[in-house]
């Protein structure tokens, strides 16, 4: 069961679409988008041969901040690769991920996910936030939390079906938290919470996964489990972009590294790992 992504029903059928990166094409898609794009059936198909993620001259700011959090960042991540975003705190790693999933509106520049503008293909992008973004006291159990990963396929009014429940069950087992599935989410350890969040990202069945510090402050067992699952995802053809502090595992766990400093691309130090070019 390494093909979680196909459950969503999205196939890579070749739809006649504008060439990758064509700006007019991107605009045309955007104008067709419904105001409420929360619904499985209305997502745009991927552009054949487009990069999993193409960011060009991106500039973005947090509301109320004077300096832009990202200033002129460009990178192109080929489908099926593992890319590390490296940089100190405040360098713009999280901001870049947030802009890609549409949590932050860019001031200028463009972002294309599988050739489509942000928001055209939500189910193809899964985002693992830092743990602090969630109200862990909320009365909901682990199974339900993971099930929210399926909502993007369900949309309004539809309730999870048998396949959804089976999928969630399998994913919980895969991350070793199936016996915690009826626990309220606040009663998990930090590492277990992180695994539950990754489980939700898997449930989404996305082709592009954006992970914000997935191994920050977790126990050894969780670290091992998460690393193994990320490797499996990569082997099944997913694209994985990880914001990380950990410089030691770069060359073993990633195909490429992108360095950020103060919102701009930074030149890596002489012997630093860079991997395949991200241009």
């Amino acid at each position, binding site marked *: 069961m390494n093909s979680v992504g196909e459950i969503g029903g999205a196939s890579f059928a070749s739809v006649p679409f504008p060439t990758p990166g064509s700006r007019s094409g991107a605009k045309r898609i955007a104008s067709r988008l419904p105001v*409420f*794009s*929360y*619904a499985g059936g209305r997502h745009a198909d991927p552009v054949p041969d487009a990069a999993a993620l193409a960011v060009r001259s991106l500039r973005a700011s947090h*509301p*109320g901040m004077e300096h832009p959090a990202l200033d002129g960042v460009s990178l192109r991540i080929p489908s099926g690769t593992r890319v590390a975003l490296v940089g100190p705190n405040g360098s713009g790693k999280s901001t870049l991920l947030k802009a890609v*999933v*549409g*949590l932050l509106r860019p001031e200028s520049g463009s972002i294309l996910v599988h050739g489509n503008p942000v*928001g055209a293909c*939500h*189910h193809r*992008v899964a*985002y693992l*936030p830092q743990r602090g*973004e*969630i*109200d862990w006291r*909320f*009365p*909901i*159990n682990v199974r*339900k939390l993971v099930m*929210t990963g399926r*909502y*993007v396929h*369900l949309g*309004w*009014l539809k*309730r999870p079906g048998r396949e959804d429940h089976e999928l969630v069950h399998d994913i919980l087992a895969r991350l070793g938290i199936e016996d915690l599935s009826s626990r*309220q989410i606040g009663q998990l350890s930090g590492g277990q919470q992180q695994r539950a969040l990754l489980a*939700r990202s898997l449930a*989404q069945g996305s082709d592009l996964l954006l992970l914000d510090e997935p191994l920050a402050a977790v126990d050894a067992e969780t670290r091992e489990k998460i690393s193994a699952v990320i490797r499996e995802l990569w082997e099944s053809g997913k694209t994985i972009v990880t914001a990380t502090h950990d410089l030691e595992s770069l060359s073993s766990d990633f195909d490429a590294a992108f360095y950020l400093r103060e919102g701009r691309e930074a030149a890596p130090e002489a012997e630093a790992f860079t991997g395949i070019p991200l241009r």
Partner: protein
Amino acid sequence: MSWLTGPLQYSFMQTGAVAAVLIGATCAILGVYVVLRGMAFMGDALSHTVLPGLVAAYLLGVNLLGGAIVAGVATALGVGWLSRRQSLREDTAIGITFTGMFALGVLLMSTVSSFRDFTHMLFGNILGVTSGDLIAISILAALVLLCLFLFHKELELTSFDPTHAEVVGLRADRVRYGLLILLALTVVVGIQAVGVVLISALLITPAATASLLTKSLPRMMLLSAAFASASGLAGLYASYYLNVSSGAAIVLSCTALFIAVSILGSLPTPKATG
């Protein structure tokens, strides 16, 4: 048991009992979201701001519920709009709107010579619910409960993880507007029982009591509804037998339940065997 069944031979008691249960359940189930999302102040504000709507409708001789709905929905949208740009904190926006609207209501009331007509708006009167009121209450309650049922998935997700909601294209702010409108309708429903001033107790106290007892959202809603309905009936009987204000009696029943559950919960639990 005749003290319990006896009064029910009167039609006003039957109507009152049905209204108490309906109002209690609706307020309490929506109230779970109010409590979990930290919207208690918003609930209190919304209830006060329907007053000018009620009074204006009374003065114009049009349907009171209609006036209240217009005022409530206008407040819900107004506060959302005021605090949208983040230059004004939401609680500040609520404070401004709520006091302004309530003052407008008081001003309008003072233009009428017989102030007494408005005491049932301020403090509720469950014994005065007519069968026409009951139909309106039933329709509104059914509408609110149906919306809560249909959009449970979205309300739940935007409550505990608005970030994920936005990522999958579900606009958390619009869901919030929807919830505020439901809250406005619920307040209007509840005014008949406890009045403008005390309605937020019916939203908050039973839900808070239930939240002490369970960590499951559906169970929390059921318990909350049960507590509020029971309090509604207790208030109705207290009002019948003791001739006290029904709204105050209902709210005090809710408060008593909350205190009882808190005390029971803080007692040292007996050691589990095995």
